[in-house]
């Protein structure tokens, strides 16, 4: 791992023509400072409004979710943890019976729940509690009122946004089949963004569009050989594979971040549906122009500034591409927990050569690199942000990029603002 640092030099040499497509990647295996996949519940439960997420795990899992969600003003949240206790481990209680009774009580209290996810955790996986069997069993006993699915959000299997991937992949297995030629947009988006995209697709001439995940369990889209799917998020490797195994075809595209990203994303869909470029331009021109105007306002603050990404959400590469190309920022290191070459191919080609690409983490070494680079802005998790600020480095918390609507034309300015604000703030403060 020490030797890996020498790769930094090699990176600068990397080919210019194809952006970062062939850039070497620094792979690190050390302490990772990232959330596990359970965190996805925080945004997924808001998206699917009649779903309940039941983590089968430990007090740590329960504490993680409530800490990641912050103290929220909820009457009763639509997520909970079935905490495994000593008696479950000692075999005094049959874990499956216990789980059935917890679910029974839960459903009795929350009759509005239509879709229940049993979410696996590290402890449930280490003790080999088979949640997919439990889900089938419970689905049978609760049908037709409640559908029960399972996926793993465990920290030994999933990193942060991979929890959403696992959740959506579980949904895919349960989708009805169709042969119709339809567009499927995959990845949780804020409702407002989803509505904007729906209008844009309609204007382009793609009327048959579904979104996964849907807002309600009853609205699960159908998939099949006619389905063309467009990923709205870069972290959906398993979901894409599951869709492909149902016969669907992925439309390769960059991700809809920024004006350019959104246009290229829409264009990929338009091409796949045989729509003339002129029609696309006509449908998107005004919104794209609005987005570029919004971005221009932030350019003065961001252009030329050096930015460093700690690995977190897998959004790092598309974000770096957006910030570099549309705002003139200079990425120094782009860390990502997992670099999916195929899904990021278009992104990597667009990302100007130069930054160190790193995959995985060894947090102390990465902090050393960050301190040495002294970037103007560091994108990192909440555990690192204040300590870096205290060292004089401006930071942007990455989790906000998942909780805030950032995709599409109308959000491009907001997205730029998320990065500009920490810098603006520093200029304002005189204390």
């Amino acid at each position: 791992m020490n030797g890996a640092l020498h790769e930094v030099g090699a990176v600068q040499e990397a080919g210019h023509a194809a952006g970062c497509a062939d850039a070497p990647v620094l792979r690190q295996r050390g302490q990772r400072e990232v959330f596990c996949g359970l965190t996805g519940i925080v945004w997924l439960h808001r998206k699917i409004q009649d779903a309940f997420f039941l983590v089968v795990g430990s007090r740590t899992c329960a504490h993680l979710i409530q800490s990641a969600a912050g103290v929220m003003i909820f009457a009763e949240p639509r997520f909970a943890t079935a905490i495994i206790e000593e008696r479950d481990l000692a075999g005094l209680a049959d874990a499956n019976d216990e789980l059935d009774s917890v679910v029974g009580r839960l459903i009795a209290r929350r009759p509005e729940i239509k879709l229940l996810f049993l979410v696996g955790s590290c402890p449930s996986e280490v003790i080999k509690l088979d949640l997919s069997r439990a889900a089938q069993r419970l689905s049978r006993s609760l049908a037709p009122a409640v559908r029960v699915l399972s996926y793993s959000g465990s920290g030994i299997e999933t990193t942060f946004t991979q929890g959403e991937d696992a959740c959506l992949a579980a949904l895919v297995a349960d989708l009805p089949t169709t042969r119709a030629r339809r567009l499927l947009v995959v990845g949780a988006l804020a409702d407002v963004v989803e509505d904007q995209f729906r209008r844009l697709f309609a204007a382009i001439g793609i009327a048959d569009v579904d979104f996964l995940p849907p807002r309600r369990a009853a609205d699960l889209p159908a998939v099949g050989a006619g389905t063309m799917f467009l990923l709205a998020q870069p972290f959906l490797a398993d979901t894409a594979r599951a869709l492909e195994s149902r016969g669907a075809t992925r439309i390769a595209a960059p991700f809809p971040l920024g004006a350019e990203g959104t246009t290229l994303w829409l264009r990929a869909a338009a091409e796949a549906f045989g729509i003339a470029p002129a029609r696309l331009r006509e449908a998107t021109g005004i919104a794209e122009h609005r987005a570029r105007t919004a971005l221009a306002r932030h350019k003065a603050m961001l252009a030329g500034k050096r930015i460093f990404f700690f690995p977190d959400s897998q959004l790092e590469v598309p974000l770096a591409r957006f910030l570099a190309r549309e705002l003139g920022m200079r990425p120094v290191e782009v860390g990502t927990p997992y670099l999916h070459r195929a899904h990021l191919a278009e992104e990597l080609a667009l990302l100007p050569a130069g930054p160190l690409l790193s995959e995985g983490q060894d947090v102390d070494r990465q902090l050393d690199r960050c301190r040495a680079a002294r970037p103007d802005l560091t994108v990192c998790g909440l555990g690192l942000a204040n300590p870096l600020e205290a060292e004089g480095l401006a930071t942007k918390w990455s989790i906000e990029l998942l909780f805030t609507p950032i995709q599409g034309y109308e959000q491009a300015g907001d997205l730029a603002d998320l990065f500009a604000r920490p810098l603006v703030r520093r200029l304002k403060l005189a204390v």
Partner: protein
Amino acid sequence: MQLTLWTYEGPPHVGAMRVATAMRNVHYVLHAPQGDTYADLLFTMIERRDRRPPVTYTTFQARDLGGDTAGLFQQACRDAYERFRPEVLLVGASCTAELLQDDPGGLAAAVGLPVPVIPLELPSYQRKENWGAAETFYRLVRALAQPAAGTARARPRCNLLGPVALGFRHRDDVAAVTALLDRLGADVHVTAPLGASPADLATLADADCNIVLYPEIAATAAQWLGRSFGMPCVTLPPIGVSATRDFIAEVARVLGLDPAPVLADPGTRAPWYARSVDSTYLTGKRVFVFGDATHAIAAARIATAELGLSLVGLGTYSRELARDVRAAANAYGVEPLITDDYLDVEKAIIAAQPELVLGSQMERHVAKRLGIPCAVISAPVHVQDFPARFSPQMGFEGADVIFDTWVHPLMMGLEEHLLSMFRDDFEFNDSAAPSHIAAAPAPATLAWAAEAEQELKKIPFFVRGKARRNTETFAQSRGLSLITVEALYDAKAHFAR
């Protein structure tokens, strides 16, 4: 399996982190998967700490499970020692690693580091955060404390035990109690865990007594110090005027000092404020108390004996100290509530119909939802529980802080009551700004008729601003350009629905 929607306490290793993070020159190697690193943000975000907690997580993954997680753990110990050079290394497992049975203690010992390694066995499936903190502190003290060196000195010295990271006002309590002891003629020898190094713990027995500020965290360690070195111990947390007086008397007795001068001139306004006539309205107001045992018991005493409120409920989530809370509840003639399910607490609050709730951040949310005034008295903490200003709970200064913080929401409550017709407040609707943020002037198109302006003046001054804003919002939403008396009352009816 226990169905948990929200929990007052985290797992026991988070308690260990609260001890390690509070101290200097200690590092904790935790055998845990990557997601467990979330715990760092509790310290860096809630407490706004400027450094990462001194914790190295092994972050093993599924693919390591078949292989060598033990080797991974040993490598993490070596790397952590090399990088951080602590005086002491704490080692342990979180819930997942506990199932792997890798034996962190044995593995770390085998690495042969040149510093003491203290293994922590914190059963994640039985115990919780406060227990974990207490056990960690006890293990540290037990491993490090040496017999007294017996140096002579002019003033007696005490140890302040129990303050940790993420404690409810611990930092300020330490300052308040230190100042109080100084007035009494005693010095603080070591404050621990907060700010102490392992070397400081080694000298604990050099003090003349131990003062346990937070029994949840320091009782076990203090008992051991008592047994091992014959150190006397004072466990009367000085929260409230009467408890502070008891505390002073007891410390003075143990140390052979004269408490009279401090007791004669306590310098607190709370007792007089409580007696002043404007506090009459507090009499018999119904109060519900829930929190950790120490703060809950103290709050019950202050509420009843120092503010003249009526206690209608008392409870705790600390099962370790449930007995003390039961005894206190029985003494006040209320049903003790021992639970870590906030929905049970909510049920009890609804049933007790209190006019004031004293609890943790969760009770604050519950109370807000129910429209009942509330003040926070206990962990689990929230970023608001680390105010920029000095706000201890302990000592006479703490008593004054408590008087202000508890009585203030009751006044607000009075205001809320008058305002039930103007409910469109930010507490109920987050799109409206609170009235203490200057209201935007009415748009030019909106004018007040003279009689309406007159009528507005009849509304008590402290709710007038809000009434004005609400009426204007209403008028705008109806497209009115002139606000008449009629419109004012339409608005009132509208917001009272």
